[in-house]
């Protein structure tokens, strides 16, 4: 029986992969191929931009952007006659060559997919598929060891938290293990909220059992009897697959009473978040599980000592837990051999923005940004100039071209003024205004602030007000100094990580792109030609053929001119909507 894998991750579902699955099943039936081929829905391959993805096993031919009407060709040409359908193969954006198999594609070839290994290759709704790839063997191994030994393995592996600051996971487990208390909890932070990051969603959708197994190993190690997975309600597919996985794990005895016949019992619950970014902060997350407002509280006491309902609680994020079964199965030594001296293993990045290959990328720690963006990502869209890469979401920073050879690990990113965060990598080209990027992030954090502490609630508002003014051409001398002063105070005094890191996008852009801020303030000019209020639309009289299209469609009535004669734009009236720019056939309209 050969398998046909159809991706059923959120990205591919959005590109109609469900319809492709249905059509494929119908076609197999019509061609009497049902006993030779089996259609399996998988989780995300991380190459969402090319979706819906279809893979034919065992040769691993990858078809991209498959639509319903392409199914017939796949069945008749490939499945019946053994000739791959060339037009559906992936085309290398650089060489323009058609590439047939999964592993030959640059995007995948240069990755080290360990945590994502199963994503896109097994059916996430079937526990047997997970068991067939050594699933739950990590848990079996752990249960045969003393608890301290399991903690030691994680410590030796050098695993650090994948959700933000990179706290050593083994140490966190040890604190919770040693904390006094009969009742302990494990919590999985699946409240992935960083705009631009979706690795946790993909792992939950593509390999939910790996997360459950990691949590159960942690629960055993610290001595917890109960656990919660706090998952964003905005990820309905992830929630659904987790529910299925949890029910199957309970049924097979991997979760619940006397797990695998041992004395260890642990039950897990799923809690859906209700839409608050700040709940990614661990004390806010715990408050939310307890049915309260997600307002962070001061630490200490840390959750390892006083967490859920005042009991010792271990909190890790999805990707961290997904690494755990791997470490147990393959050993701490193997794991520690990946990555750099202080950052071990691999990290999943969500590569997005103005890059050719967007998607999820798993690479060993220590790889350079250049390798990720230009080799795996295939370079900048339309071959424009690289300007910056934003790393770590709203807590992170923007790094310019001179940092492209920076090895990506926790410590060097922090030193450069960015942050690993959850691993969002948003690539920006020369049409992106860095002041506007900073404003965008602050607008996000101010709305997501819980409102409890003064510096975060009031200070970010004021920083946003200043940035908004600057992007509108109303910047004043002294604004940059005031931004820096506010940033220093907010970073130093805010109650939780959200506030303490919120100024980072501003500080990093001020550090590397100060001249761009100054151009806005002093010259009322946006060098990236992005800030609307600072743009002036002009018509090149040499190129304008007087077709009147722009004049007729201008919503502000700002364009005048006789037919067949060059038109002009009245800048006083112009609303800078860009309608004329899009309409102009001879490309006579330009922006300054």
């Amino acid at each position, binding site marked *: 029986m050969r398998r046909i894998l159809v991706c059923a991750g959120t990205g591919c579902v959005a590109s109609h992969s469900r319809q492709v699955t249905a059509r494929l099943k119908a076609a197999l039936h019509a061609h009497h191929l049902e006993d030779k081929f089996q259609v399996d829905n998988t989780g995300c391959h991380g190459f969402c931009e090319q979706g819906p993805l279809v893979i034919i096993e065992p040769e691993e031919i990858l078809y991209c952007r498959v639509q319903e009407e392409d199914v017939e060709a796949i069945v008749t040409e490939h499945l019946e006659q053994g000739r791959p359908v060339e037009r559906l193969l992936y085309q290398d954006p650089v060489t323009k060559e058609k590439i047939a198999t999964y592993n030959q594609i640059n995007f995948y070839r240069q990755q080290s997919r360990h945590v994502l290994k199963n994503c896109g290759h097994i059916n996430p709704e079937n526990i047997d598929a997970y068991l067939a790839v050594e699933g739950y063997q990590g848990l079996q191994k752990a249960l045969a060891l003393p608890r301290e030994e399991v903690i030691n393995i994680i410590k030796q592996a050098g695993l650090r938290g994948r959700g933000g600051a990179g706290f050593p996971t083994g140490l966190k487990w040890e604190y919770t293990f040693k904390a006094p208390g009969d009742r302990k909890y494990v919590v999985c932070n699946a409240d992935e909220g960083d705009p631009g990051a979706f690795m946790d969603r993909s792992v939950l959708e593509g390999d939910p059992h790996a997360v459950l197994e990691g949590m159960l190993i942690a629960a055993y190690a610290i001595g917890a009897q109960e656990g919660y997975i706090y998952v964003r309600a905005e990820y309905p597919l992830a929630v659904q697959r987790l529910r299925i996985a949890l029910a199957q794990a309970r049924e097979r005895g991997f979760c619940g009473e006397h797990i695998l016949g041992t004395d260890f019992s642990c039950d897990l619950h799923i809690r859906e978040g209700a839409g608050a970014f700040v709940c990614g902060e661990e004390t806010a997350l715990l408050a939310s599980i307890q049915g309260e407002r997600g307002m962070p509280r001061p630490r200490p006491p840390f959750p390892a000592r006083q967490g859920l309902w005042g009991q010792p609680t271990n909190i890790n994020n999805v990707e961290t837990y997904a690494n755990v079964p791997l470490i147990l199965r393959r050993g701490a030594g193997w794991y520690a051999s990946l990555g750099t001296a202080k950052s071990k293993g691999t990290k999943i990045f969500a590569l997005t923005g103005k890059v050719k290959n967007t998607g999820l990328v798993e690479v060993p720690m220590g790889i350079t940004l250049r390798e990720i963006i230009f080799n795996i990502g295939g370079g900048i869209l339309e071959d424009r100039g690289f300007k910056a890469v934003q790393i770590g979401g709203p807590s992170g920073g923007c790094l310019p071209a001179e940092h492209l050879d920076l090895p990506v690990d926790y410590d060097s990113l922090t030193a450069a003024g960015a942050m690993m965060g959850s691993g969002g990598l948003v690539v920006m080209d020369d049409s992106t205004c860095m002041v506007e990027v900073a404003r965008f992030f602050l607008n996000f954090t101010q709305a997501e602030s819980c409102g409890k502490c*003064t510096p975060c609630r009031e200070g970010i508002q004021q920083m946003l007000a200043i940035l908004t003014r600057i992007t509108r051409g109303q910047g004043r001398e002294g604004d940059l100094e005031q931004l820096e002063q506010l940033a220093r105070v907010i970073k130093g*005094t805010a109650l939780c990580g959200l506030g303490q890191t919120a100024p980072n996008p501003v500080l990093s852009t001020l550090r590397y792109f100060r001249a761009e801020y100054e151009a806005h303030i002093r010259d009322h000019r946006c060098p990236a030609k992005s800030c609307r209020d600072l743009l002036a639309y002009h018509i090149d009289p040499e190129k304008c053929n007087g077709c009147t299209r722009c004049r007729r469609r201008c919503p502000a009535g700002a364009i005048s001119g006789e037919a067949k004669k060059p038109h002009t734009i009245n800048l006083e009236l112009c609303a800078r909507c860009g309608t004329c720019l899009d309409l102009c056939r001879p490309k006579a309209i330009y922006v300054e």
Partner: protein
Amino acid sequence: MPGVSLTINDQKIRVPAGTTILEAAKELNIAIPTLCHDKRLSPFGACRLCVVEVQGRKNLPAACVTPAEEGMNVLTESPAVVEARRTIIELLLANHPLDCLTCEKSGNCRLQDYAYRYGVKKTPFEGTRDPLPLDDSNPFIIRDPHKCILCGKCVRACQEIRGQAVLGFAFRGPATRIVPPLDTSLGESDCVFCQNCVAVCPTGALRDKYLAGKGRWWEFQPESVTCPFCANGCHFYLLRKGGKVVAVAAGGAAPGRPMCLRGRLALTLIFCEEPPQPQIKTEKGFAAVSWTEALGLEELAGKLWPK
């Protein structure tokens, strides 16, 4: 004694483990400013005005919630601390009406005191919010959300001392407000007007209506009294002006027991030269009643002075 030794502003002190930096500093007579802290209420750590510098730490921790640790070296008025406090005050003032000339709370307002202490004459920031309307829906408490700095003391006092939980936080981020249930008015709510919230409010956001127009705070000679009407012993102030008691203000509840409206009214009746007429909440709203009725003494009065 099991404890920790630390240094605050070059002075050494030993305190029991678990003591906060704020408490340790107090032992040394070092006053650290606070807005949201109250030792009778649960720790909150929200206003961040009490931040201090701890050598070796990157951030400035809040003294009210940070436990003293062995060997800590704390500076309570270092340049970084003063900059942070000034900025926090300036941020709070950006959305605060600067009507101290006529504000009843003037002279007894922590925000005003700290602005004075740190030399904040005006704020460099522009307000980001529209003024919120005044809630004047009941005869005892004026709720002025425009003056609220969201320290959350009233919320905790209402829940933890009174056990009433009328006031609560609502919304989030810059839209955060403190409101009665369903964002209605205090008059419509289950508020029993005990004034615990008024007693803890550091600004003019919650004010005692009886005090309005009675005088400026510095004209009063407050006298501390203990309420004699039950065994708990809540704490009140008799406010004297020109030798006459003009009002009775809520001081603070006795431990484990909320202040009650009856106690305060009875004290007002006893001590005030010109006690105002009491009002009672009926289905139709507030109605003026006799003191006998307000204090629930009709039956007793009927026996003492039969008609």
